[in-house]
């Protein structure tokens, strides 16, 4: 079981193999939990979102498209479960399998690609100039790949605010990058 790849494990999960699901849980729980906890101060809620995510995987393992990274797909499910839990704290709304299949590697714009390549110094410097509110929105929409609506649920702010902050953040980033390059 431990030698199998993530997508092979998903194949076994589709055949109702609990041991395979367990291996996925063992493999991915730690980093997913840490990352979820960075999105909510409530670590119980993070654990619940992770639980919902693996249950969703069990119910529709075939919604993963054979290409792409299983880890990224899992994160996409987990962060949406968290957003949905935050929206209705009492009653989680299951993420539909149709949506799960849409989660496979997100198509990013060239601008986003640039942003994702933050390990290259200049973008990092530019990011540092953004306020925490603007950064949060960028994180949710670009790194986590959430829609405006989902990001609004996750951050607990209106959709309009998400849109405007994202716009401001991106233009500020652009300005910063241009000025940095010119420099």
């Amino acid at each position: 079981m431990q030698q199998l790849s993530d997508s092979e494990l998903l194949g076994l999960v589709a055949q109702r193999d609990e041991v395979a699901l367990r291996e996925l849980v063992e493999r991915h729980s730690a980093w997913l939990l840490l990352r979820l906890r960075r999105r909510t101060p409530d670590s119980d809620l993070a654990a619940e979102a992770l639980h919902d995510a693996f249950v969703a995987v069990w119910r529709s393992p075939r919604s993963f498209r054979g290409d792409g990274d299983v880890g990224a797909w899992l994160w996409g499910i987990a962060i949406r479960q968290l957003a949905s839990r935050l929206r209705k704290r009492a009653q989680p709304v299951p993420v539909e399998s149709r949506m799960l299949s849409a989660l496979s590697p997100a198509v990013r714009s060239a601008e986003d690609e640039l942003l994702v390549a933050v390990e290259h110094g200049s973008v990092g410097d530019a990011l540092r100039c953004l306020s925490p509110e603007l950064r949060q929105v960028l994180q949710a929409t670009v790194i986590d790949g959430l829609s405006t609506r989902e990001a609004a649920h996750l951050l607990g702010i209106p959709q309009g605010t998400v849109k405007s902050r994202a716009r401001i953040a991106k233009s500020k980033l652009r300005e910063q990058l241009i000025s940095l390059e010119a420099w």
Partner: protein
Amino acid sequence: MSWHVDAPVWDAYAAGRLDPAAELSLESHLTGCPDCRAAARSQVAPAAVDEVWSRVRLTISAPAHPLSQRAMRRLGVPADDVVVVSAADSFMVPWAVAVGFALVSACVVGLAGLGPANRDVVFLALVPLVPVLAVVASYDALDPLREVVAATPYSKLRLALLRATAALAVALPATMAIGFVVPDMEDLALAWLAPSLGLTLAALVLLTWFEAWVTGGLVTSAWVTVVALLRIGDQVDSLATPVVQVAFLVAAGGLSLALVLRTSTLRIQGGEL
């Protein structure tokens, strides 16, 4: 990749001490880097992962509720009764027996080419027995788990009634339909209900003494004999008269009382309640 996330970096990330840009770059780096994800394990207590797994396992192995069960829940049936009714075999067998018998009755009455008088006779002889067979088939004699169930504290009468109710919920509409679908049966379409109630209760009382198959045989043959005798005396139509109908209802009341008495004083028996 030019770099990897090691334990100290995860440490800083988990504590929120990482520089915002570094945090973003770490998160985007995680896509497609199993080694760095694995390094996160040192930051999370194994118990937390075990907890996630044990809760996931419980959720996925708890029965998923099919449509029929959710419908029952919505109608106000208690959750534990739903579990009992849904135990596949015990639900399907009585259902199949009742519906199958109802269909056979319908075919005999509708298609056998009988004269109108004989049609009434066959209708009144067979149709009231549909619920009786549903109840008898619901009883523990046909339960594959009979022996296991016998040693549980759950009331066997309650079990039989729950299953019978579930079977009747499907069988009764089917039986009703016979009266309305078969031509020229409208006058008797509801006349069978009172006799059927009486016969079903009689079967339940007999079940406290006899095995299910004996009970089914006794009630069925007794009723068919009665109807046949009425036919010989040309009295079949009397079954539909108000007096006889009320008499059946009174008998049903008496039998319910007998059932309550029997169940409260029952000693060990083949038909243990």
